[in-house]
């Protein structure tokens, strides 16, 4: 078994935490795991990509281009950016949210919009799960759980070998006090998003 996942989004969206929880869960479930992430120049607002690899034995944390099984996209432009990482029959879970970059005042970004991006991504991806994470999170009463909702969706994909209980343990391990229950709830709702579609 080998599973390669690319997490992609913007600094501040909780990518580091979500990918940490995934790795922690895989470890609890007895898998070897490796992850690469970049803490770039900006604390908030820049592109963030994390590569997560799970298997019996993992040699190195970076995934080869065109070999990722799953992309977990936290934002549409950043999802589109890592699409070449995906293999031909890979799946994409994407938060339906476009945050224009600071370069959107000039050049090619000027003509880019929500619909255009979504069209581009739909054209290229065979199995795409579109999730309105912010809407669901707002209904849960906290916009900051979008990452856990997406993680829940990821856990429900048939490709994922890591057991649900392991995720629950990992969430309790990584998060603090009152946020554990909220995130467990978000995780469950996230799972349903994939099961429904």
């Amino acid at each position, binding site marked *: 078994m080998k599973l390669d996942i690319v997490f992609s989004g913007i600094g501040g969206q909780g990518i580091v935490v979500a990918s940490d929880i995934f790795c922690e869960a895989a*470890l609890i479930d007895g898998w070897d795991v490796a*992850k690469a992430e970049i803490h770039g120049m*900006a*604390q908030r*607002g820049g*592109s963030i990509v994390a590569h997560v690899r799970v298997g019996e034995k993992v040699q190195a944390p970076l995934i*080869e281009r*065109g070999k990722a099984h799953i992309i977990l996209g936290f934002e549409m432009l950043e999802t589109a*950016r890592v699409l070449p990482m995906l293999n031909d029959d890979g799946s994409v879970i994407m938060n339906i949210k476009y945050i224009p970059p*600071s370069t959107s005042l000039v050049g090619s970004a000027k003509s880019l919009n929500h619909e255009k991006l979504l069209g581009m991504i739909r054209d290229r991806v065979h199995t795409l799960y579109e999730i309105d994470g912010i809407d669901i999170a707002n209904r849960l009463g906290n916009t900051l759980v979008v990452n856990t909702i997406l993680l829940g969706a990821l856990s429900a994909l048939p490709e994922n070998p890591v057991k649900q209980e392991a995720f629950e343990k990992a969430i309790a391990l990584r998060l603090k006090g009152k946020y554990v229950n909220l995130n467990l709830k978000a995780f469950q709702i996230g799972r349903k998003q994939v099961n429904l579609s």
Partner: protein
Amino acid sequence: MNAKIAVDKPGSFLLLNGDEAVARGAVEAGVNVAASYPGTPSTEILETIADAAKNFGIYAEWSINEIVALEVAAGASMAGVRAIVSMKHVGLNVAADAAMTLAYTGVIGGLVIAVCDDPAMHSSQNEQDTRYFAVHSNIPLLDAGNPQEALEMTREAFKISERLQLPVIVRLTTRVAHGKARVAINEIVKSSRKAEFDKNASRWVMVPSNAIKQHRVLKGRVQEATELANSSKFNVIEDNGKEIGIVGSGIGYYYARSVLDTSQFSWLNLGFVYPFPMEVFKRFASKVKKIIVIEELRPYIENNIKCLYPEILGKDKLGLDEIGEFTPDAIKDAFVDLELCEKSETQEDLDLPSRPPVLCPGCPHRAFYYALNTVNQFVVCDPQKCTGCVVCEYACSAEKEKVFNPIKSRIRAIRLDAFSNLAMTCRVCEEAPCVAACPKDALSRSTETGVITVNEEQCNGCGWCINACEYGAITLHPNSRKAILCDTCNGEPVCVQWCPESALSFKGRSTDKIVTGDIGCYTLGFLPPVNTVQTCLCMGAGISQAAGMIHAGVKDKVFAVIGDSTFFHAGMPGLLNIAYNKSNVCVIILDNNTVAMTGHQPTPGSGKNALGEQTKIIQLEDVARSLGIEKVEVVDPFDVEGTRKVIREVLAYRGPSVIISRRPCPLLIKRGPTREILKECNSCGVCVEEFGCPAISISPERAEIDPTLCYGCGVCEEICPFEVIRSKE
């Protein structure tokens, strides 16, 4: 035990990144003292040790810079206990003076220098290769390729250090330091060492007569280290009986293993790389026919073996250069070219706009930069809105001359083309051509406001200034025949108030000041639309670069921006230097009370130390005054106009000065009330195109604030020329 690495179950697994693994290795080895200065990607080493310090009786500190950290660790080691010091690659340059001679004196307690290199410069200003620092200083170096190796090497490095009586470098690269992996942990050896200093002047006092002896001692230790390298468990041969042998070090070795069929090659993983383990290499070379070298950055292994094995395939022949980092794809391409593995088809990148790093929403640095950029404001006209109605001309003449007569106006409406009009007035140019052109020296520019005034006694109405102004902002008064131009009505221009189309606004920004920069979040002020910062060399350089420019005669006044932590790290000598040498530099200390970029470590100004204990708060203004600066001002950057006022004051001041711009990093405090933009917004663009807040986006109709991104700093509300931004609460 709350701390993440404080788990006492040998043989169990933890999910650790390379930094955390180094910390665990040090704890397992019974480290007693740890010191560091934050620097990506090495920061989490000390952070993790500090987190566990109380569990194991370790002393951990954030030192004010890397050389201090190394000296603290050296002192501890001289007293016989184990010490670790951690830093990023460029931090080792700062610590180099101590490191070079520490190799001569050697150490007593094991001393490990953990250094994180940053190939591809994810967060650095260069990509130097620390393996060559090891050669330069004669300090043995272990090169970790994954977190497990980082742990084992750190643990072992203490033993090697004590055996050789030399410090030992454990080198990581970004992908190892910030890559997480399953790591098997070992037993923790609790230290029972008692600190004692053996006074031995011939060893510790490095005057020439002693140093020359110690240099010879060092050479003997290097000899012994070579033997250790040749028998080290970190230099591993995997002989698969194949013709082709791959030798590598660091993460590149593991990338190669992950993209290739490992059984088709023989492998040599070099971990103890300085002194170079030539005997191990020779043994490997005798088993294979062809050798391929995989190493990031400089061709260190290659250069060591090329004289004996000139036919090896190294950087040039593989097409893997020494710039940037390796990826599995790049290594695979190299092997495809050698016909040693099959090419896989991949898709092209989509044509998408980049998302460069930006200052966060709510960042006080942005607010200060905005104040600095807009310190000299002037009347600006939007040609899309101007109807050419000339109400501004009437308003101006009425205000200045008490008549409605456009000929006496300081602002002039002109028709640009068939579709647009424009009202022009003085732009308060910094190097004003009108002032330079005047043969009678009648024109002068205020250093504070930038407003240009005409001395009527001296003006002879020659009109040279009119020809010099490319904006057509100067005219002659019809009666007096003297030059007249806009004086901004003391900062409240009447024309702006009267413009019926809201085409005029009093804003304007200039980036024609010279502003040297430094290293920290605020370096991002070089990016558009802020465009304020113009240099970034190394920690502390900005102040002295500014001084150099002043003494070269480039300008009257140069600004230097530096963060609070960077100032404590390397800015103090530069500040003392400008006080001593009377340099007309204004040093701006952007004080957000934390080391923000590396993840919010405490600073000497924050009142907390690495262990979370209360400590003395070192006030920046006290430090600045004590270093000889007489003009020291403190501003709140969120009070933009108040900040401008102080900047204007400083512009008029002769001599070295300091402005401390004080506001905590927004990521450390509760968010303020979210702002919203009313539908009356006319999309003037000040908040986006000039202020540059990433929480605001703009369309031709109006600007909009994303409530999930807004930190509620409220600066946009303050600077909006049309007062259409307000708090949601």
